[in-house]
């Protein structure tokens, strides 16, 4: 088991003929992801890395069962692409694109909610159910099977911590990127609930950052979880009022501080690592390894 995606997930790549789409199609195929189709309006009939390209998601769905899609379409067309996947009934939509207007994000998230689709992103690295399926852009080599579920707002920091985990012999059940923007489709709680129910997952790493109150809200749920949670919060040293790369990573009007998040997580029974490399040790400690 794993959450959201697994070895049977049929994946569609939107914007497959673009530079990013083509590059990551190859990377995902190399990881073992079942990419069954791509889309690129007006380029239907093309073949990319051996995968057929269609003019629309609906056309792809006429020819394949599509379980998940990944959006590599430029920011101006991202909302339309995400809506297209959701409308066609695709259950998991991973939106990698950065720089999507926040009003577009609101609309696509609202439509996903109405249609019962899971949206990861925008501005996410994607999701990996280690050894089974990778959707998105993480480097292939650090993700190996194991008992740790990881959920994060940030990409490279996740690879860093996943690299540390893997180096310590702790593989991952599923690694979920929620995306670094202020409005994204999935919350920590959504993912934590799935990890709590996933038999493969024995412990969870929550990689947060300053800004918003997602970690504080998640802490309320963590209190009720049976599985241990280790947190890491980036941005301890960031000054208030400055947006740290991610649209969501900003301390505004005294809200979204490092301290507040660490306190909430600690109060909920999670252990919080001070530096990224401490995460594997805390996991082992909590699992009694």
């Amino acid at each position, binding site marked *: 088991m794993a959450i959201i995606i697994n070895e049977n997930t049929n994946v569609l790549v939107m914007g497959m003929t673009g530079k990013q789409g083509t590059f990551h199609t190859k990377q995902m195929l190399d990881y073992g992801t079942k990419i069954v189709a791509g889309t690129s309006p007006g380029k239907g009939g093309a073949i990319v890395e051996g995968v057929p390209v269609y003019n629309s998601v609906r056309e792809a769905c006429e020819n394949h069962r599509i379980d998940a899609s990944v959006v590599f379409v430029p*920011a*101006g067309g991202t909302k339309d692409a995400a809506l297209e996947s959701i409308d066609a009934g695709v259950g998991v939509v991973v939106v990698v694109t950065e*720089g*999507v*207007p*926040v*009003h*577009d*994000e*609101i*609309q696509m*998230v*609202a*439509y996903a909610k*109405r249609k019962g689709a899971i949206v990861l992103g925008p501005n996410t*690295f994607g999701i990996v159910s280690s050894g089974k399926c990778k959707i998105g*852009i*993480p*480097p292939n080599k650090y993700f190996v099977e194991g008992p740790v579920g990881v959920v*994060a*707002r*940030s*990409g*490279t*920091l*996740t*690879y*860093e911590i996943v*690299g540390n985990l893997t180096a310590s012999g702790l593989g991952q059940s599923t690694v979920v990127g929620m995306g*670094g923007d*202020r*409005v994204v489709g999935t*919350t920590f709680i959504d993912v934590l609930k799935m990890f709590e129910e996933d038999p493969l997952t024995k412990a969870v790493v929550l*990689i947060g*950052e*300053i800004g*918003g109150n*997602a970690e504080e*809200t998640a802490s309320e749920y963590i209190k009720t979880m049976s599985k241990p949670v280790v947190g*890491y919060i*980036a*941005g*301890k*040293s*960031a*000054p208030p009022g*400055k*947006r*740290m*790369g*991610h*649209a*969501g*990573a900003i301390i505004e*009007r*005294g809200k979204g501080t490092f301290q507040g998040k660490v306190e909430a997580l600690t109060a909920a029974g999670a252990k919080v690592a*001070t*530096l*990224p*490399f401490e995460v594997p040790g805390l996991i082992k400690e909590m699992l009694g390894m």
Partner: protein
Amino acid sequence: MFEYMGKEIFAKFGLPVPQGRMITDPAEAATVAAEIGKPAVIKSQVLSGKRGKAGGIKFADTPEQAAAAAKEIFGMTIQGLPVERLLVEEKLKIDKELYMSITIDGAAKMPVLIASAHGGMDIEEVDEEFIIKQHIDPELGMQPFIARDVVRRMGIPLSGPHGKELVKIVQTLYKIFIQKDAELVEINPLVFSDDKVIAADSKVTIDDDALFRQKDLPYVEERSATEKAAKDLGLSFVDLEGNIAVMANGAGITMGTLDTLQYYGGAAANFLDCGGGTGREATAKALELLIAKNPKSMIINIFGGITRCDQVALAFKDINESVGFNCPVVIRLVGTNQDEGRAILASIGIEAFDFMAEAAEKAVKLAAANV
């Protein structure tokens, strides 16, 4: 966006604003005051709150007084920002000050309207019980009934002229918020002036990511020169107070690098996220930006995913051979094409670190030693 720009947008949508206009020459103040034909207020246009306390807002009963006030304010520096524009407008008779804004609630994933019958001060200073919060279902939009209920909850009678006007203002403000891709539209204070309701101030923030489709909006550069240069390279840069230059790839890992420096007693001079997949040339240019800041040491922290270590190493080599580095540099380099990258660095006598913590500790030590 300056106050006067927000008010120009408000006026275009039919939202009532005071009579008056912006001037860039203080000599025009008397003319505008005369046009208004009433006591006027002269407001410095700077991107900062607290203008009033800093003396950036003055009143004038006559065109002569307006000219004098304008002369006094123009060229002032308010919180580091020079006053280059003034807004001259009618001085409103203020019977009551209210607050109204629409912004985005990231947790709820939808717009939220915040209103209060107690305005004129920071909304954070208003007692929670006097603050109305109304989320707007993005698929339903701002329907008239929502506007009416907000006004009702503000305690303003719907049957009176103020109530009726407020119902319209709520709807207009939402229209502006949506049509202009705003992150924030704020009126504080929104004032009752006899039977009228007028936006006495304006604050409008447009989503940077939507500027491509909001080309007719005035754009005000709020970034430092370095921040702007980084943005033009597609990178994200923030000036900080410390003396260790930082480059990393990814917002989270960059923050993590900053935090690790702090952990070892150092302080970062900047946040520079060089993103994923940035090539040799852009990386080199980013390094130049860091050098220009005269840091005491520099840390380059790359966990290569899309970013290829060899490209980073080549960029480093390029800069080393052209402008050269003006401080000690620590490089942590792992991930895609790691071996190629390290070989390039080795060719110029640089050894890369494996772990972020080690690299950060070293960078702090080097900065401390560099006096």
